[in-house]
């Protein structure tokens, strides 16, 4: 073959190679299949999650604030890479708040295990970088629905713009960060109705009584499939029971004291460790700090379709002191623990009628949801960031607005594989991997040279 022929042949091979390489990759990208060998198939996204990731149409940025050296950060990178592989518009980064405090401050993140998702100028925080939390957060961003949380005012409630330790500016920030809108409602003025657009009505720490007309308005709202978050207070002169008794929850008042589970040597500053329900409101919540909480009671006989969950209870040695002003003592009339300090009621029923979008004659689910806590102090700026309080509020709002567990994805078990790497073990690993193995390789590699030298020496000796 001549020089020109050789050149032409090389050109043909190059062109064929380019076609094969490009075609192969395009085909593989279009029909990608995967084998997941990880334990419990941790990194195979559920069908719901994959569909959600593909539905993202604009840049979606995920910033996971995690301990960069920990296994959670590695798993987060692996998991978030799956979303990125499915849709390049989803980008991610893992930020360590300790090494990048400026970035953490910019996002208002003060602790590990916060995942911030940003999409079309909106933001939603997820509690961790698991598939379930991430997909739920993406769904909330894609829904383009920002529920409004209406805060009742006019009874001595703290203000959302109050940045003092007793204020609620932390709640306002949390609501904004989780894509909720806020509105302040005073039922004593105007038409005395809860506005139609209220996704949740929140009554946080009223210090004075509500007028009968206001109570009626609240009950009308909840009866009409409303959502109520009521943070009761033992420090109030009002009675929240007319608003919550229809939902199977009563407020006992008094002061829950738990000498064994309290902080700052103050038995009324209780730490709640028992979260006995499977309600999504207590997902990822291990402990709560509920200072100055009054007890709640769950009615034994509930109306049909109504279910009530004990979200949080005090310890077994706690009690509800009905006369705390007379000193902290268990006396007559006091209720022995454990005492319920947070509860959730759900009344669901199939109702006739066809809301918009459903065919005529169809039935639809009507639902009322109520969350009651025996304390309002846990929502104040001085306590919102403590223990699991912040998570509890986010979960409660998500549950009240039907945004909980929106994705039927299974959350993979944590990939925690502890190995105590003691000094002794470190020496063992170094001895074997850095010492014995390389030395063995050098020894084995030197053998042919040594054998050859001996042979040559023997050969020379034989010649002499």
């Amino acid at each position, binding site marked *: 073959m001549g020089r020109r022929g050789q050149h032409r042949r090389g050109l043909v091979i190059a062109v064929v190679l380019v076609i094969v390489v490009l075609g192969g990759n395009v085909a593989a990208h279009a029909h990608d299949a995967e084998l997941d060998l990880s334990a419990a198939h941790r990194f195979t996204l559920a069908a719901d999650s994959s569909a959600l990731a593909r539905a993202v149409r604009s840049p979606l940025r995920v910033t996971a604030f995690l301990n960069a050296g920990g296994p959670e950060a*590695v798993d987060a990178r692996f998991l978030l890479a799956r979303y990125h592989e499915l849709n390049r518009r989803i980008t991610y980064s893992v930020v360590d708040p300790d090494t990048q405090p400026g970035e953490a401050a910019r996002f208002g993140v003060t602790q590990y295990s916060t995942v911030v998702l940003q999409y079309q100028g909106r933001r939603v925080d997820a509690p961790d970088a698991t598939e379930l939390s991430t997909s739920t957060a993406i769904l909330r961003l894609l829904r383009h629905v920002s529920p409004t949380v209406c805060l009742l005012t006019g009874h001595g409630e703290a203000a959302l713009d109050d940045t003092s330790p007793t204020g609620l500016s932390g709640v306002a920030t949390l609501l904004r960060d989780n894509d909720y809108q806020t509105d302040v409602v005073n039922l004593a003025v105007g038409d005395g109705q809860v506005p139609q657009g209220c996704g949740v009505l929140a009554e946080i720490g009223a210090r004075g009584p509500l007028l009968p007309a206001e109570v009626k308005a609240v009950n009308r709202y909840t009866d009409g499939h409303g959502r109520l978050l009521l943070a009761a207070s033992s420090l109030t002169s009002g009675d929240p029971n007319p608003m919550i008794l229809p939902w199977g929850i009563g407020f006992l008042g008094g002061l829950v004291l738990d000498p064994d589970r309290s902080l700052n040597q103050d038995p009324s500053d209780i730490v709640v460790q028992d979260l006995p329900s499977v309600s999504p409101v207590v997902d990822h919540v291990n402990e709560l700090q509920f200072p100055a909480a009054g007890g709640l009671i769950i009615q034994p006989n509930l109306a049909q379709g109504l279910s009530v969950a004990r979200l949080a209870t005090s310890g077994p040695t706690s009690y509800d002191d009905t006369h705390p002003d007379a000193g902290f003592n268990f006396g007559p009339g006091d209720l022995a623990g454990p005492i319920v300090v947070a509860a959730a009621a759900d009344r669901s029923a199939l109702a006739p009628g066809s809301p918009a979008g459903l065919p005529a004659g169809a039935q639809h689910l009507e639902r009322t949801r109520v969350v009651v806590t025996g304390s309002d102090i846990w929502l104040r700026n001085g306590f919102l960031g403590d223990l699991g309080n912040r998570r509890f509020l986010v979960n409660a709002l998500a549950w009240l607005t039907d945004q909980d567990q929106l994705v039927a994805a299974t959350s993979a078990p944590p990939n925690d*594989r502890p190995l105590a790497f003691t000094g002794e073990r470190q020496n063992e690993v170094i001895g074997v991997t850095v010492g014995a193995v390389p030395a063995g390789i050098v020894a084995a590699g030197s053998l042919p040279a040594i054998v050859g030298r001996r042979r040559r020496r023997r050969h020379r000796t034989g010649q002499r």
Partner: protein
Amino acid sequence: MRPLTGDRVRAVLAIAGRDVRTTYLSAFGVGCTAAFAGLAGVVLVVALRADQARLDTWFAPLYVALGLLACLLTTRSFAEEERSGGLELLLTAPVTPWQVVLGKLLGTALVVAVVGLSTAACPVLVAHLGHPDLGPIITGYIGVGVMGLAFVAVGLAVSASTSNPLVAAAGSAAVLLALWLSGVVGGGLRGLPQFVLEYVSPTQHVTGFLRGTLSVGDLTYFASLLVAGVGGAVVVLGERR
């Protein structure tokens, strides 16, 4: 390219066998293997300081080291051999460029396999000390094999195009580094440029091996590097002949 049968396969095996022997009868081959095994040990100690019996943080730096090793090993395949005069003999022998390149690829891949095997003590030790997830270890080693082949092929193409071993090593490293960095550049872009630049970067395709998944896309990517590298080396060698 004619089918590889009979004598042709023997020729490929002979070239590969000669390369393996030459490598391991020299201090270079033994030193590279021992150094890689030692490096794997050091990386393991650092990885285990997180007090977790997991090896994904061990494999990731090994993949980078594997790229450097491929650059070093392939330098000897053509550039070094041309300098010593061995390549001229090989090219005048009755073998085709395909046979030469496949023989060189097989020989270097066998060396990479031995180097990979030299790190086997690490996962065995971790399994002895804790309970690691076996899936990512299996896929991690599959990654070592697949990536090793691909990087060696790229190195062969560069090595075949120059007679200077230093240029060959630097050239291979530059190509792999450029591929690696394209992902970083692509990360700051949007749309098709982002997709293309990220896709051509190996970083996008090693994540699966690290987390314990094998995807057709990742395997195809490394197979493409292999095909492109081998094809490129054949074309260059054909031209030089």
